[in-house]
Structure formats: structure tokens, C-alpha cells
């Protein structure tokens, strides 16, 4: 079988490279997916399966010699002295990092508009957001600038922008891919994931990246009881899900498709669903407040013009260097961990998280995979007619569950409604990625990825 990367060896000779660079330059002038782009870096290992293939990396994952800004003013000038394990593994197969993609500051947001360093427009409609926080990665793939781009997913940050831009988005099982070189946001939730232009590419990239890494003590290989690839019973959500009509139509259509293919569709109840978002934001902000305490302005990062003493320097660096959403989450996280409030918020959230895991363990005794929407809306507009920061958080109710329970989830472009893509996702038991790829591949065979009208390079 032909490699899914065959058409993408656009860096294999000088003429192809020139054509490729010209395309990206023109396309990205309208989109703004990249914070840094350089297709002229030394080529990877010859003979690897990714030889001559470009890929992009979210600017929260370290690549030696590229910046590592996390979309923040506080790290704007930081150049990474090392490379993340996930990137090393792809480079070892010949893959070439061509740039770093835009994102919500430290991964905190659903639009990429929380980036301090640039705006990323949705390739389907430039007035709309690309989603977030891995918005640059999803937009770069959708517009045919790269076949795949790495992202990070703490509460939906790969899957939601993938859905908004009409590409595939994998959030692997917690621990399946090494996080060495991923800047920490919420350590019990963070995973390295991938946005890709096809199921085959998402699968191959995941297979190359996965595996226990001695540099990440939380990484692990699947055990002998890892779930097999076959799925017969699909769990679906009943009741009023509060979806926009276009998303509701796409969800019903996807359910109808799988029914027509002979799957058993079973309505399941996830009793804990209404607690996903409050539990998620309690735990994520608590962990963020601890992880982001390292930005002091002393050893690296933004330093204020003047300070009388080291304490003042740190306070000013943080106050001037962090954006509003990051400050909000640090304050919230600090509060829920404070002595006297911990039992009420953080400890309670941890216990509820256990109940959420148990809820999924139970659900997977009745279904092999679970099909849900990714987000209740399609890519939203900026400003009026869009969603404010609070509404965006409430809308994380379908994505955060996979992070809280540590499960793999795979979002796919299910339909185009009103000129914009709609994404759905499958969830599987831990280490059930193969099952996700199989079930979505069937959909892709019948409904290949839709391409945004203006961005169709010959290789995409």
C-alpha cells in the first residue's frame, strides 16, 4: 500500500521546496497559523518513512533552535535548548519541523485569540476563530501547509480546533506519548496529541511517537490487556445535549451512518456529565497555579524594565508578562488550593474525578466506543455573535471528560453545515487508540475530509 505520506515529500528537492515555501507564505498571510516558519532547516534521516515530509509543532513543545513562546509575552524571546521526545522520534524517521504554531497563551483558551503574539484565522472563514488552544496546528493542517502538526490537549485543545478547522485530532491515552519537552499546564491532564489531514497519517504519527520514555516518568507502554481494534457497539448520548442545530444534525447523521453499517447503537447515560466542567477547571487551574509558579523573570523570560529587589522583579515580570486569562486561572487555582478552601474545592473535585473515571469504566462494559459531539457550536465569530470566555469554558463539556478519565479520544470532520465543518469524537478505553482509528477510518472512506475552498494545494 502506498504510504499516506507519499504526496507530502515536498522537501525532498530544491524545486519542490521552493514551491512549497511559496504556497505556505501566501496561505499563511491570510491565516496566521505559524509564529515561526523555516523550511530550510537541515533534513532529517534519509530513508525514514517521513523523509522529506514537513510538519509543524505547537509552540508549547520544545524544538531545539526554535522559539518556545507558549503564545505568551513572558516567554516571547525564549529559544529552546533541547527537543521534545515526541519530535525527536518523528525527526528520526526523516520528518522535518518547519515551524511553530500559534496557540492560546499556555494552552488556556478555546479560540487561539488568547495568544499574546498573533491572531489565527479559520481557513474556512477568516472572520471566525480557528479554535484552541492548538488553533495554529489545526489551521496549518486544514490549509494544506503541513500533513500533520503536533498539539497538546489538556481539556480538548487538539480536538476542538481540529473540529473547527475540519481535520482529524487525536488526544492519546494519558501517558501513551512522552511529555518530555511539553511545557506543563496541568500535569494530570496534559497529553501531546496530533492534528492530521487523514486517519492514516494520525495513526502513523501516533505509532511513531508513542511509548515509554525514560525522560518522562509518567509515560507508559500499553499493558497486555489493551483493548483490541474491533468495535461493534457504539455508545451514544441521549436527551437534549444543548447543541447548535447544525451540530445536532451532524451528530444524528453520524449515528445514522454507523447504524447503516451494522453497528449496534446503544444509548448510554453518563451520570457525572454535569460535573465535568467544574471538576476540570478546579483541577486544571490548581495544577496551573503550581506549574506556572516557575516563571519568575530571573533565569529566563520577560524581565521588567526596573525592580528594586528580586521579589518585586518576579511580581512585575508575572504581572506584565501574563495575559488576563492566564492570570485568572492562576488566581483561581491558587484560591482553590488555599488552606481552608482546599476541602471545599480541590479535594472535592479529586473525588468527583474518581467518580467520573468509574462512570466511564462502567460505560465501557456496555459499549466498545462512545460517540459524542466535540463542541456545541461550529467555529464561532470574533466579538459580537461569538462566545465570551465564560461561555467557552462551559462549552468544554464534551471534551474535558477524556482528560479527566485519561482516555483516548479522536475527533473527525463529520459534516459541513452552512459552509463550516462540524466535528464529532469517539472515546475508547485506555490504550484503545487502534479502535478509534478503525472506526473513524470507516467514516473517512465514505466521507473524505472536506477541504476549505480557498486552500487546496496539489499535495493535500
Amino acid at each position: 500500500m502506498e504510504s499516506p505520506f507519499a504526496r507530502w515529500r515536498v522537501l525532498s528537492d530544491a524545486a519542490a521546496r521552493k514551491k512549497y515555501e511559496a504556497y505556505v507564505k501566501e496561505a499563511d498571510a491570510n491565516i496566521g497559523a505559524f509564529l515561526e516558519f523555516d523550511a530550510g532547516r537541515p533534513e532529517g534521516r534519509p530513508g525514514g518513512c517521513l523523509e522529506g515530509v514537513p510538519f509543524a509543532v505547537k509552540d508549547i513543545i520544545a524544538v531545539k533552535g526554535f522559539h518556545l513562546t507558549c503564545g505568551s509575552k513572558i516567554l516571547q524571546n525564549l529559544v529552546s535548548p533541547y527537543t521534545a521526545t515526541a519530535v525527536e522520534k518523528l525527526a528520526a524517521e526523516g520528518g522535518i519541523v518547519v515551524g511553530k504554531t500559534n496557540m492560546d497563551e499556555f494552552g488556556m483558551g478555546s479560540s487561539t485569540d488568547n495568544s499574546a503574539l498573533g491572531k489565527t484565522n479559520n481557513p474556512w472563514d477568516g472572520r471566525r476563530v480557528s479554535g484552541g488552544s492548538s488553533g495554529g496546528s489545526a489551521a496549518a493542517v486544514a490549509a494544506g501547509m503541513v500533513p500533520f502538526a503536533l498539539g497538546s490537549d489538556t481539556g480538548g485543545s487538539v480536538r476542538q480546533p481540529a473540529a473547527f478547522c475540519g481535520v482529524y485530532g487525536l488526544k492519546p491515552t494519558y501517558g501513551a506519548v512522552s511529555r518530555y519537552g511539553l511545557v506543563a499546564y496541568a500535569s494530570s491532564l496534559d497529553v501531546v496529541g496530533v492534528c492530521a489531514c487523514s486517519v492514516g497519517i494520525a495513526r502513523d504519527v501516533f505509532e511513531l511517537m508513542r511509548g515509554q520514555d525514560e525522560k518522562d516518568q509518567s509515560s507508559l507502554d500499553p499493558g497486555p490487556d489493551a483493548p483490541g481494534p474491533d468495535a461493534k457497539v457504539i455508545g451514544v448520548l441521549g436527551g437534549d445535549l444543548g447543541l447548535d442545530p447544525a451540530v445536532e444534525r451532524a451528530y444524528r447523521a453520524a449515528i445514522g451512518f454507523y447504524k447503516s453499517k451494522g453497528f449496534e447503537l446503544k444509548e448510554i447515560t453518563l451520570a457525572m456529565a454535569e460535573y465535568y466542567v467544574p471538576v476540570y477547571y478546579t483541577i486544571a487551574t490548581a495544577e496551573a497555579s503550581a506549574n506556572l509558579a516557575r516563571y519568575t523573570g530571573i533565569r529566563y523570560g520577560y524581565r521588567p524594565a526596573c525592580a528594586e529587589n528580586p521579589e518585586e522583579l518576579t511580581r512585575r515580570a508575572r504581572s506584565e508578562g501574563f495575559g488576563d486569562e492566564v492570570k485568572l486561572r492562576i488566581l483561581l487555582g491558587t484560591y482553590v488550593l488555599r488552606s481552608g478552601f482546599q476541602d471545599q474545592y480541590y479535594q472535592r473535585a479529586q473525588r468527583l474525578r474518581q467518580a467520573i473515571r468509574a462512570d466511564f469504566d462502567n460505560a465501557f462494559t456496555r459499549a466498545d466506543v462512545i460517540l459524542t459531539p466535540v463542541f456545541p457550536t461550529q467555529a464561532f465569530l470574533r466579538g459580537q455573535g461569538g462566545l465570551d470566555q465564560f461561555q467557552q469554558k462551559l462549552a468544554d463539556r464534551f471534551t474535558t471528560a477524556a482528560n479527566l478519565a485519561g482516555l483516548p479520544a479522536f475527533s473527525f470532520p463529520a459534516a459541513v453545515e452552512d459552509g463550516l465543518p462540524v466535528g464529532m469524537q469517539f472515546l475508547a478505553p485506555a490504550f484503545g487508540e487502534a479502535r478509534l482509528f478503525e472506526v473513524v477510518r470507516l467514516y473517512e472512506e465514505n466521507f473524505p475530509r472536506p477541504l476549505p475552498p480557498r486552500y487546496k494545494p496539489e499535495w493535500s
Partner: protein
Amino acid sequence: MDVSELKVTADLANIELGEEEFASLGREVEKMLDYFSKMMETDGMSLPSGPGRRAANRTRPDAVSGDADPDSLLENAPELEDRFIVIPNVL
């Protein structure tokens, strides 16, 4: 959350808030805490608090590994004097 609690929290977080920021972020924090009170509906504290992870902890030897080269780390320091990072007076 009253104003003094927000002040204490901001101090603990090492963040200085201007007057306007204090008001706007204060409102946002309040809104989220209101929303978190949804968790109080449950008898959450009677739930088990078992380990979050199913795998055992794994440790590594406490030894220097070759990855981070000290000089390239120093290149990111805002201000250097020889191989020392310059900061304001401590005393």
C-alpha cells in the same frame, strides 16, 4: 470571595493587580467560584479518594543526564555577567 481574599490570593500567586484589573479579574474569579459551587450539590466527600493513576510510580537515578547544555540555558538569561545571572540587590 471578598476583596481581602482576592488580595491575599494575588499575593500568594505573586501577581500584582492594578485597580481596574483587580475589579475585572475579581468578577471573573467570583463567577467561576459560583459555578464551582455546583460540585457542592453532590455528597462528593463520601466518594472514594483512591489513587488517580493505576500504574505504579517509576523513578530514575538521581544523576546528571546529557540533554541540557548549561551554556545554551544561560543564553536565555535576561542579563548575564560572565556566567552569573544578574538580579537586583537582594538586601
